[in-house]
Structure formats: structure tokens, C-alpha cells
């Protein structure tokens, strides 16, 4: 009896010590699996989505284990609405919306605020009515602002070719953010005496037709953050090279596609910024308290295109360029 008790005490002590040793190697408890719904109206935002996933992966969210992405690819407007409703029904943990119109639809459909929404890239979320202030958005939305650069885009274009007097601008006037950018561009051009050839396009068919009908007096083409135009970037670039006129677009991918220059946000950076916001939201910070971030703007120049259209890029631009495609 006495011996048994003694042995029990000894064994219990050793087990406790072993437990302490084993406990010292224990890590943190596993996280839950977050479901993220992604709504995009254009394949042009694919770099954002991919970098968003990469960014979350860098924060430790392994796809399929810690996070599940619900993304059916680029959707037309009517399906976007349905998809957002479905996210609301499924009560996903986060919705990533791309483009201003998609963010506005999300704000309306997910209005009960139970699902955080990250928007990107939005030209001016404050003017679009998505947030209260940049510093403290309020509500259930936050995201990345990536607008207000069209004036500088025009500036870069003019510095490449100061003789430009007519600029062809295809855009979708039904996209609020695009329309706002166009208006700003128009005002700026007017001050400079530059004529904007305004062409409204809402789909690729219209774009092709519009390009075919473009006047020969056009000195350059400038693209806004318009999904129809961005989706047709290769067609437009090819067209511009054929017409030997410079094409200014909004991001590096456009330059890769053939645009002479691009000035705007890097979608890869935007995606990572979204990932950082998502991480904070997953950690319990209300989206309405996370300030809306601004995307960094980069100048990208494609020297192949410049050579193709016979333009020499000034050195100061090359110095200023983030990326030079030779």
C-alpha cells in the first residue's frame, strides 16, 4: 500500500515533468478557415486577385486550409449581383470587390454589414459614396484608392510627345469612377488646349468598332481605368502601334501588352495591400476602422513600342520610370 503510493507519486512527478517538457514545444492554436468571396467584372483585375492570394499566403493563410476563395472568374453585371447575394446568403467571412460599380453593388446588397468588404482599386471611394472618410471609412467597407492620376498620365504622355493635340479616349460612361476620371481629364485637357476624342464603349465589340472608326487626326490614345478598354488592351496597343501613335494606359501590365507608357497603380501592389487589410480584418479589426489606403503610382515605359512607333523617350522620363520594357 505504502509502496504503491510512493510509486504513484514518483510516476506522477515524472509525468508532470515530461508534460512540462512537451508543453514547451507546443505552438499556437490553429486558426479557423476563412471563406473569401471575390467579385470581379473584368479579367483585367486578375493580377490583383492573384497578388491578393499571394499576399494572404505570405501572411500565413494557406489556401484550402486557412482560407477558401470563392471566385467564379469575371462576371457580367447581373451575375455580379447574384454572386453578391449568394455571398450574403452563405455568410462568407470577407468579400473582395473589384471596380467601383462592383463595390457599390456590394454596399447595397450586403448592406446589413455583417460581411466585411474590401474594395479595390477605386478611383475615389469618398465621392462614390462608399466610405465616410479616408481615415475612418465607417461601415463594413474599406479598401484601396487608386485614382486621381489621369492628369499626371496626360502629363507623361505630353512629355513623351509634346506635339499631341488630339487624344482618343474610349471609356464606359456608365462606370461612375471612369466617368469621373474622364471628366477630370477633360477639364485638364481643356486648360491645355488639347482635344479629347471621346468614345463611349461598353463591350469589346463596340471597342473594335470604335477603333475602326477612329479619326486619323488623333495623335495619341489614352486609356482610363475602364474595364472594357483594359480588357482590350492588346487590341488597342496593336492598333496604336499600327497607327504609330502613343498609347498611354494605367498600369504596368498594359505596358507589357504594348502600351507605350502607363501611369497608375501596380495591381500586384494593390492585391497585397488588400491582403494586408484582409489579414487585419481576419484578426478582428472592424473594416470601418481601417483607413482606406492609396495605391502607389508608377510610370512604366515600353521602349519596344516607342521604337515601333518611332518615338524617342526623353531621359528624364526614363529616369522617372519604374519599369522600362526594352
Amino acid at each position, binding site marked *: 500500500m505504502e509502496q504503491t503510493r510512493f510509486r504513484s507519486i514518483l510516476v506522477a512527478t515524472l509525468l508532470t515533468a515530461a508534460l512540462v517538457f512537451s508543453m514547451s514545444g507546443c505552438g499556437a492554436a490553429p486558426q479557423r478557415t476563412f471563406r473569401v468571396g471575390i467579385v470581379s467584372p473584368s479579367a483585367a483585375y486578375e493580377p490583383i486577385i492573384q497578388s491578393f492570394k499571394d499576399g494572404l499566403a505570405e501572411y500565413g493563410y494557406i489556401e484550402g486550409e486557412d482560407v477558401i476563395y470563392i471566385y467564379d472568374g469575371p462576371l457580367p453585371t447581373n451575375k455580379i449581383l447574384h454572386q453578391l447575394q449568394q455571398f450574403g446568403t452563405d455568410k462568407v467571412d470577407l468579400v473582395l470587390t473589384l471596380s467601383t460599380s462592383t463595390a457599390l453593388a456590394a454596399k447595397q446588397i450586403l448592406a446589413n454589414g455583417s460581411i466585411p468588404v474590401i474594395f479595390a482599386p477605386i478611383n475615389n471611394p469618398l465621392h462614390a459614396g462608399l466610405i465616410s472618410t479616408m481615415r475612418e471609412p465607417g461601415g463594413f467597407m474599406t479598401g484601396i484608392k487608386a485614382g486621381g492620376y489621369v492628369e499626371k498620365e496626360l502629363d507623361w504622355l505630353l512629355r513623351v510627345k509634346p506635339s499631341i493635340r488630339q487624344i482618343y479616349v474610349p471609356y464606359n460612361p456608365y462606370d461612375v469612377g471612369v466617368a469621373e476620371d474622364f471628366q477630370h481629364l477633360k477639364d485638364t485637357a481643356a486648360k491645355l488646349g488639347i482635344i479629347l476624342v471621346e468614345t463611349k464603349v461598353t463591350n469589346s465589340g463596340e471597342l473594335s468598332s470604335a477603333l475602326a472608326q477612329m479619326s486619323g487626326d488623333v495623335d495619341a490614345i489614352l486609356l482610363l481605368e475602364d474595364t472594357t478598354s483594359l480588357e482590350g488592351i492588346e487590341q488597342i496597343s496593336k492598333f496604336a502601334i499600327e497607327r504609330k501613335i502613343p498609347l498611354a494606359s494605367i498600369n504596368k501590365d498594359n505596358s507589357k501588352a504594348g502600351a507605350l507608357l502607363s501611369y497608375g497603380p501596380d495591381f500586384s501592389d494593390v492585391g497585397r495591400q488588400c491582403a494586408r487589410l484582409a489579414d487585419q480584418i481576419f484578426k478582428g479589426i472592424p473594416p470601418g476602422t481601417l483607413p482606406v489606403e492609396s495605391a502607389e503610382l508608377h510610370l512604366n515605359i515600353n521602349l519596344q513600342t516607342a521604337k515601333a512607333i518611332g518615338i524617342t523617350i526623353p531621359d*528624364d522620363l526614363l529616369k522617372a520610370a519604374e519599369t522600362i520594357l526594352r
Partner: protein
Amino acid sequence: MQLSLRTRLTILLLVAAIAPVLIVGIIAINQTSNSLSSQAITAQNEVARRVAIQVLNYIERPQNQMEQLIKVREIQKLPRQELLNVFNDLMSFSNIYNTISLSDRFGNVIASVSRSQMTSSGETIPNMRNRIEFETPLSTGQIYYGDVIFDEETGNPLMYLSMPIINLTTGEVQSVLIAQLKFKTIWTLMNDASIDGQSVYLVDTNNIVIAHANPSIVLQRTSFKHPDQGTRTIGLSGTTVIMGIAPIGLTTENDFYVVSELPINQALTLSFNLMLIVGLALGFTILVTATFSLWQTRQITRPIENMAKIATALASGDLSARVTVASKDEIGTLGQTFNQMASDLQNILTGLENRVTERTVELENQSVELELRSRQLLDSNINIQKRATQFETIAAVMRSVASVQNLESLLHQITEMISTRFGFYHVGIFLSDNANEYAILSAANSEGGRRMLARGHRLKIGQVGIVGNVVATGKPRIALDTGADATFFNNPDLPETRSEMALPMRSGEQIIGAIDVQSTTANAFTEDDVSIISTLADQVSIAIQNSRLFEANQKALAESEEISRQNVRHEWARFSKFRTSIGYKYGVTGSKPLTSELENTEASQALESGMPQWAQKAGEAVMAIPVSIRGEVIGVLNVRTPGERHWTQNEADIVQAVADRVAISAENARLFEETQRRAAKEQTIGDISAKISSSINLESVFRTTMQELGQLMPGTEIIVEFDDEDRSPKRS
């Protein structure tokens, strides 16, 4: 609470062995922790310092570039377009610039380049007058670093760097080069430094975080009051961190602070690991020490506990219990001694047990003897009690004899008393008849005896039963239920009799009867019973004799009283003849003798019955109290009062007492008169006798006699006659 030896020894060993180890371990851990904590703070300060140098370089770089523009390029002398190109080149060279502009001494913007606006729109920029970034270098001639501001559109922190361009000839500020610097680019520095849990951020003099790896913190314009120097504190993240501080001085010594913080668990990982190792070593040491202590305690206490158990077994009577001696140390010696003591104790106790056994046998024998004696004493006591009871019976009988004068009742009491006190179920008393022919059952206590009494049971003296035999012979006899005596027990009234004893009752030499005692137990009578009941028989004989004498005396007394009453009645009757009145009447007018009997019913009734009489008649109340002498009513005291009245007992007692006094007084008066009469008579007889005696011859004697008698009774004829031999005396 009294702890066991093992517990106390265990505690003592644990305290003695573990406490020093624990204290040393704690001190070592504490010292190490403090040292490592200091090292961690130093490391964080170093991180902050390095980042601060980078930040300072980063911020000072545009200052140098702008100075170069002024001193090398002499931008103040360039035409506007070339100036714009220079600015564009500068902005292309470094993305820290958000805007660069040049204003003349009047605040007019000569050229301006913006990262977000058209380069060619500089003319539209408002005048810089009254703006601090312009006025300060203009007025002071010094480089101006403005406070951190936040861009209204993007929320990004910005800072103005203004540099005066002085005319070397006049010494006056002729223009001001103003650059708006973006701190957002510094975020990259913070981000690069913030790795592996390390967080580095920049705080301005207003404690606003202006650069951080997490843009949200900056954009939120988070305020954080940091300590003045590195320490262990609560960090920006809200957790305990090791914090390093490094100030950055631009225009002053402390324009910015680089704060570096590392969560305490990371900063002191080495310390924690060391503490863990020391703790584990400490724990292992404690474990080993505790185990060894417990083992040693066990080695020490186990034999003692074993001895305690053996001692308990010895105490409970198991004298064969012995300690197992497994060691040769002090405890082994103690065990051997203990065993020796147990053996000695066993021997002593065995001897004691033998002695106790012997003594027990002796005591048991003595106990038996004592019990026997006790029984004897008890028997003696019983006998004594019985004897006492018998004596009490005798005494009671004697008291009854003294107190009870009725013979029948006395005899009955005696039979009940003997039966009750001696436990005999039948006691009978036979008395001889006057002819001494039969012994007649005069008293009995049992049911059968009473039936025999009722039918006048008697036995022929000298012929029937042992009673008859005893009355005839005057000798006690005891009959047993065996042999010839068995015939005595055929009495149907007393069928349960198994023993019978008859004892004679004597009055002098005469046998007056016998006491018959019967028992349901064979051989029930002892010599003591015979002796005691014989004594009782004698007492009963005396009682019977006394009773008989009492009855004779009572009878003689009654006769004497009757004679006395007759005498009283006769004397009063005779006395009354000589009285002229038959009574007296007393009223309000005094008393007067009665000469005739009153017509009074109550008086007549009282006279006849000898009892007081009361009556309420018409107009008067009457009370007649007889006046008696020795039971003979000689008169009546008749009391009357007019009107209605109820005589009280007190009045009746008074009248009765008066009547009794009247009777005594009347009797005394009558006796006095009678005595006087007798005395006179005796006087007369004496005189006559004297005279007769004085005569010397017969003639004279007779003559004197005649004369005296003749004088005494005048008119009477007196004859004296002498008889001859055949005749009667002669008349004269």
C-alpha cells in the same frame, strides 16, 4: 494538527534540500533575466538607432539634393522650363518628393512639379505668402523642416522642406525652394526593419505615428506616447515589449523618434529559454532531491512505522510480533533492542499470566467459597428475616391479643396473620367445648376452612385427626404426606395439603384447643416453625383466656351495673316517697316545687327513652333533657321558652351538662340523706346495743330491747319469743 513523523521529516528534508536550490535558482534566473532584459533593451535601442540613421539619411538626402540644386545648378538663375526639367529630374531621381516648387521672395511660384498634377500648371498655384513653409526660411534664412501633415486626399503623411536661396551679394533671401516630402517612402524602411516580430516605427513630436510597416496605423494617425528611453513597457500593439528609442534631430535634437519594439516573449527568448533550462534543471534537481528525500525519509520512517505497528500489535496483545531488522545502522540497533524488549516483555507477561492464572484459580476458589458463604449468609439472612417475620408475627399477634377483645375476631386475625407471614395456605384454630369432648373449629383463613366453619366442623378429642390427638395429648404433632399420616390428607375441603402441623393451646394445665397449620408443600414444617407457632399458640391461649376472662368480667360488670341501676331506681323510688314535691319549676317569678306531674309529652318521652327531646310547639320551644345516674333516668330537665326558637347544639350541650351535674348533685344529696339516715340508724342501734350490753340479765336485756324499740317505733307491738330445742325463737 499533529503531522506524522514521515510528513515532518519529509517537509524538513524537502525544505532543507530544495529551498537553497530554489533560492539560488530564483536568484540566478532573476539576475540572468535582468541582464538579458538589459541586453534586449540595448539591442532594441541599437535597432532604433540604426533605423534612425537610415531615416535621417533619407530625410537629409533631399536637403543635400536641394542644396546641390541651389549651389551647383543655381536653379534660381535657370529659366522656368529648364527649372521644371530640373525638378522633374529630381522627382524622377527620388520618389521622396511629392512636389517641388520655387517661389520668389514675394511668394510667387516660379515653377512647380507635382507627382500627381500637370507639370505645366504651375502658374495656377496660389501665392505662397503667409505659408509657414515659405515665410520661415524667408524670414530666418534657415532651412525649414515643417511639421508632419497628412494629405487630405490620400491621408499620407507629408512634410515640407524649405530652403532659402540667398543672394550672395545682398545677403537677402531672393527665393525659396520648397519640397513636399513623402514619408510614405520611409514606410519601406520601417517595413524592412520590421521583421520577425520586430516592429519599428517613426513618431513625430506630437506622438503621432508617421511611419509604420502597417500603413493603417499611420493612416489612422495613431498616437503613441513613447518613453524617453528604452525600457520594458507596453508597446504600440498593446502587449508587453522591449522597446528601444532613438531620437532624430533635424532642426532640433528631437524632431522624430524611431521606436523599435519587440514582444517580450521574443525579445527575451534567450532569457526565457535560459530560464526554461534553469527551471528544468531546477525542477529536475528538485525532483531528484525530492525523490531522494522521500526515499531517505522512507528509509528512516519505514522501520520506525514498522516498529510502531509492531508496538501496536504488542499493545493489542500479540507478543510474538517482532520487527524485521534489515540494517545494521542505528535503526537496526533500535530494532534489535526493540525485539529484545519485546521478548523480555513477552517473558514477563508470560510469567505474569501464569501468576495471574494461579491467582485466578485461587480467586475462583475463594469466590466459590465466598459464594457458598454468601449463600449461607443469605440463607441465614433469610432465616433471620423469616425469624424476624415470625417474631413480627408473634409481636403482631401479641398486639392483636392486647388490642382485640373479641375472641372470634382475634382468632380470625391470628389465622390470617400466620398464614400470610409463614406462607401456609391453611391455618385453623380449634377450641375444646365445655365438655372437653370435641375440638370445634373456631377460626380459619382458607376457603376450605371457612366452609368447614360454616358447617360447624368439629373433631372428637382423642379420636379424630391430629387435632383431636393433640388436644387430647397436649403434644404438638406434624403429619407428613407419607405412610399412615397420608390418611389425614383426605379432607375434601383442603385437598392440596401435603403437610400438617397441630400445636396444643394451653391455659395452665388445661388444653383449651389447638392450632392447625397445613401446607401445600411436603415436609414444610421445621423445628423453628414448631417452636414459633407453639409460642404463638401459647399467646393465643393467653388471648383466649384473657378474652374469656374479659367476657366474664364484662358479664359481671353488666350484672353489677344492672344491680346498681336497680338500686338507684329502688333508692330513688323510695327516696321519692318521702318527698312532698316531685320536682321544681323555675320561671321569671322564681322557683317553686312541683307537686304533680306536668302534662308534658317531651318530658315523658325523655323519661322513658333516656334520650333528649326537642319540640317546637304552638307558641313555645321545648327541650327535655333526661337526668341520669349510672344509666338510670331519675328525672327530666324540662326547658321551655315562648315563641319560636331553634335550640342550638351548644345550648343542648349546656343543658345536658347541667342535667349531668344535677344528677350527680341529686345523687349526692340523696346519698347524703341516706347516709345521715343510716348514721342515725346506726346511732340508734348503737345506743340500743350499748344499753343492752349494759344489762346483765336476760330479762333486763329483753326489756331494754323492747323499750328502745318501742321508743324507736312508737305504736308498734314488740314480742320476743324463745324457742325450745324443737321450736323456733319466741316472740315477745
